[in-house]
């Protein structure tokens, strides 16, 4: 700031200097300059002094010599002034720049101040926080000290206690040591005692050892004895066993002996029997002979019996014939008598037949009359049958009528019940009406006000209702009478029908019962069938139910009622998608690697820009690939062709087969435009006809070995009638007839 003020002073000074210079050219510049130069950076007071000095300076300006110098000096001064001015302007620039710098610095200062303030605030906050922390810590410390104090107290008390305990323990220890000492002494004593005892026992042991030696000697003696004893015992045991075995043997032998005795008895008995055998043999032979004789006799007897039977039959026949003969004789006599009588009476000349011839005539007459009668009888029988049928119809009608009657009766009873009920109701209603009337009357008597109208209306209504009921009752009665009439009619009809029925019942009963039985049987059969069906159907139903259950378990559903939904992005779909992507990427990679491999193989392992080449190759598939595709296509086409050929062959085979079946000729094509026909009935496979089709489409027959045998047919059918089919069929007919003749003759021979 000081420099700033200096500058203003400097400007003022300059102005004064300029003024003085204008007024007076006699100016001692050397001094002023000196002063100026000297005072340039001095305080303003000094500067003022200098200016005063310059104004007071005419002491030197009196000499004219000095003027030139002064002028020079003035010009110098001017130059200097100019330089000074420039310096002033420079200074001014510097001033302005310094001002801006100062301003900037001021702003910076302010900013810094603000920063410092903020920092100060933060520090203050920190300080306060630290204060609070300090206080907290202090409190904690205080608490800790308190606890420490208490703990120290506790410690001291515990220490004291522990000291006490230690002293007690030391006392105990001392006492225990004393005890231990005493115990040690005791042990020592016991040890010495035990030493003594041990010595004694050692002595005893020595004694016992000697005794043991004796005992061992004895023991060895005993053992020797024992071994001999055991030997003896084993011997005894063996002997015992032998004894037992011997005893068992003895027993077995005894039982055998007993058996032998029994056997002896049996053999004796058998011997006796054996003695009887030769006798028996002779007897047997005799008996056999007898038997044969008897058998022979029996056969004879049977024959005789049969003869007897036939004879008896004959006898019976003869007897019957005899009887007939007798009867015939009797009748003959009678007839002879009659004849004689007739003959006798003939003499009287009556119309009676005089001879058997006339009688026979009579008989014929009678026979004709009988025939007519039988005819009549047949008619009557048919009549009877028709009446039976009618009777059945009538019976059916009767049944129907009876059913109707029952219905009608039911109706009538219902109606009568209804009527009764209605009558009762009517009675009740009439009573009610009477009561109402009486009530009304009483009311009328008691009160003569406008109740009347209502009551009257009420009664009117009641009466109307009553009237309705009455009409209804009348209608019902009419209906009942009608129904009773109908009932009577039906009763009559029923009676008539029943009478009819009675007349036919006796004849009808049996058949009806049989029919009933049949019906019942049929019905039973039907029932059985139906039961079987029911069982079947039930089992089917069960099966179906089980199946439905199974379907249900399998997750079947009714698409008309339900639908199945799922979240489209389910884990399955996601997994499949990722798999697909993975597959595709792997596929691509494989393709790339394959190409790479191929390129490497082609170039012998030295390739530049391998990946680029691979990419190019992928983009432009190689001609070999196209070739492969073409080959595949060709293959496909070939396959198709083959298939078509197969189909064609099959159909042609079928066609030829059917031609052979239908026309009887097998048609082959040995070479183009030639057709070989072999008949179904040809006698040898070499018998065939040859035809040729020429360019105009005409068919000509060629000569074969077979055709030479058919000259007649060729003449007739080909040349005259010009028809190949007729010719062929004639051959067929001819061959067929030949074959059938052969077979017929063959079968005849058989």
């Amino acid at each position: 700031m000081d420099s700033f003020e200096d500058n203003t002073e400097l400007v003022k000074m300059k102005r004064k200097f300029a003024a003085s210079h204008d007024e007076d050219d006699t100016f001692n510049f050397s001094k002023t300059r000196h002063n100026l130069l000297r005072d340039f950076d001095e305080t303003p007071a000094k500067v003022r002094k200098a200016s005063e000095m310059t104004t007071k300076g005419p002491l030197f300006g009196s000499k004219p010599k000095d003027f030139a110098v002064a002028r020079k000096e003035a010009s110098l001064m001017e130059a200097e002034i100019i330089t000074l001015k420039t310096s002033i302007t420079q200074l001014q620039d510097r001033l302005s720049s310094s001002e801006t710098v100062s301003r900037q610095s001021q702003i910076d200062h302010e900013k810094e101040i603000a920063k410092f303030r903020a920092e100060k605030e933060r520090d203050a906050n920190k300080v306060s926080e630290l204060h609070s922390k300090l206080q907290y810590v202090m409190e904690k410390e205080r608490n800790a000290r308190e606890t420490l104090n208490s703990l120290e107290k506790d410690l001291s008390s515990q220490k004291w206690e522990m000291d006490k305990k230690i002293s007690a323990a030391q006392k105990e220890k001392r006492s225990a040591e004393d005890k231990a000492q005493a115990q040690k002494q005791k042990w020592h004593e016991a040890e010495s005692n035990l030493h003594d005892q041990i010595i004694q026992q050692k002595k005893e042991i020595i004694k016992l050892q000697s005794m043991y030696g004796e005992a061992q000697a004895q023991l060895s003696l005993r053992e020797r004895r024992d071994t001999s004893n055991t030997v003896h015992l084993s011997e005894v045991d063996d002997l015992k066993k032998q004894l037992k075995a011997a005893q068992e043997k003895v027993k077995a032998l005894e039982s055998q002996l007993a058996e032998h005795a029994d056997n002896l008895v049996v053999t004796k008995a058998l011997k006796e029997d054996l003695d009887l055998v030769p006798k028996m043999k002779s007897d047997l032979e005799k008996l056999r002979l007898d038997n044969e004789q008897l058998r022979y006799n029996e056969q004879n007897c049977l024959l005789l019996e049969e003869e007897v039977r036939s004879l008896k039959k004959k006898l019976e026949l003869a007897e019957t014939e005899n009887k007939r003969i007798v009867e015939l004789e009797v009748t003959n006599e009678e007839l002879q008598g009659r004849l004689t009588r007739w003959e006798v009476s003939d003499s009287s000349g009556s119309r009676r037949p005089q001879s058997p011839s006339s009688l026979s005539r009579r008989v014929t007459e009678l026979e004709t009359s009988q025939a007519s009668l039988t005819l009549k009888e047949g008619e009557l029988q048919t009549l009877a049958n028709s009446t039976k049928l009618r009777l059945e119809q009538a019976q059916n009608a009767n049944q129907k009528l009876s059913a109707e009657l029952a219905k009608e009766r039911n109706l009538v009873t219902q109606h009568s019940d209804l009527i009764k009920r209605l009558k009762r109701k009517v009675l009740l209603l009439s009573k009610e009406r009477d009561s109402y009337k009486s009530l009304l009357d009483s009311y009328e008597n008691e009160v003569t006000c406008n109740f009347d109208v209502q009551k009257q209306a009420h009664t009117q209504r009641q009466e109307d209702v009553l009237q309705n009921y009455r009409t209804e009752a009348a209608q019902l009665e009419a209906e009942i009478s009608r129904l009773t009439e109908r009932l009577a009619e039906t009763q009559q009809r029923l009676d008539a029908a029943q009478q009819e029925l009675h007349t036919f019942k006796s004849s009808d009963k049996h058949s009806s019962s049989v029919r009933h039985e049949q019906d019942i049987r049929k019905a039973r059969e039907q029932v059985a069938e139906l039961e079987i069906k029911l069982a079947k159907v039930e089992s089917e139903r069960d099966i179906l139910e089980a199946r439905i259950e199974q379907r249900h378990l399998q997750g079947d559903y009714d698409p008309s009622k339900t639908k199945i939904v799922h979240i489209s992005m389910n884990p399955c779909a996601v997994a499949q998608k990722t798999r697909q992507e993975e597959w595709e990427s792997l596929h691509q990679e494989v393709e790339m690697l394959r190409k790479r491999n191929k390129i490497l193989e082609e170039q012998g392992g030295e390739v530049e820009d391998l990946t680029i080449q691979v990419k190019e190759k992928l983009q432009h598939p190689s001609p070999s690939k196209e070739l492969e595709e073409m080959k595949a296509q060709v293959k496909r086409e070939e396959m198709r062709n083959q298939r078509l050929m197969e189909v064609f062959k099959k159909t042609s085979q079928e066609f030829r087969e059917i031609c052979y079946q239908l026309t009887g000729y097998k048609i082959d094509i040995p070479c183009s435009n030639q057709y070989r026909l072999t008949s179904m009935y040809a006698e040898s496979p070499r018998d065939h006809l040859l035809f040729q089709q020429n360019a105009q489409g005409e068919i000509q027959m060629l000569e074969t070995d077979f055709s030479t045998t058919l000259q007649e047919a060729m003449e007739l059918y080909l040349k005259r009638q010009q028809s190949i089919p007729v010719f062929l069929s004639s051959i067929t007919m001819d061959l067929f007839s030949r074959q059938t003749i052969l077979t017929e003759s063959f079968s005849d021979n058989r």
Partner: protein
Amino acid sequence: MATSCKNSITLRGSTEIVTEFFHYGLHSILYQRGLYPPETFAHTQQWGLTMLVSCDKDLQTFLGNILCQVKTWLTDMTVEKLVLVVKEVGTNNVVERWQFDVECDRTVTKDTKREVKDKDIQDGIRAVIRQITASVTFLPLLETPCCFDILVYTDKDLEVPEEWGETGPHLIYNSEEVKLKSFCTSVHKVNTAVAFKKH
């Protein structure tokens, strides 16, 4: 457990129980059949059983979405079946089919309350879960990599959200079926069955 320790049950409570059963049932099937690596499953206690629940985030969100939707459908009584289908990833063949048939008592409304013992329901659920765990013994081994899908049988006229699509029943050709136990909340009855490919 909306109605635990009480002797009456509402439609909401029943739906809650059935949904919970589906949650644990589906998780344990996925664990038992080895569709997800066993180390991604965590143990939890439920109905007195130690159940395994997957920690796979995608799986959790998927099952969560399905069960949330199924819950609303259970309250509307439009769910007939919930089916977990196990398919081979490579061939897309269905090899296993876990079917939960849901029978709804349509007389029940939002305000009806049914007397039922909580213990009985839990016993039923426990039995079914145990059977699911035990069924590993007779089911054939899944040798190829498999994945699963969940189908819901609903009414034909039902409007479904956008992310749901219609699909087929995913039947198994030549299958064998085993019926497992069922449980009943007196509002919903859930029958469980598993069908698998015969070998």
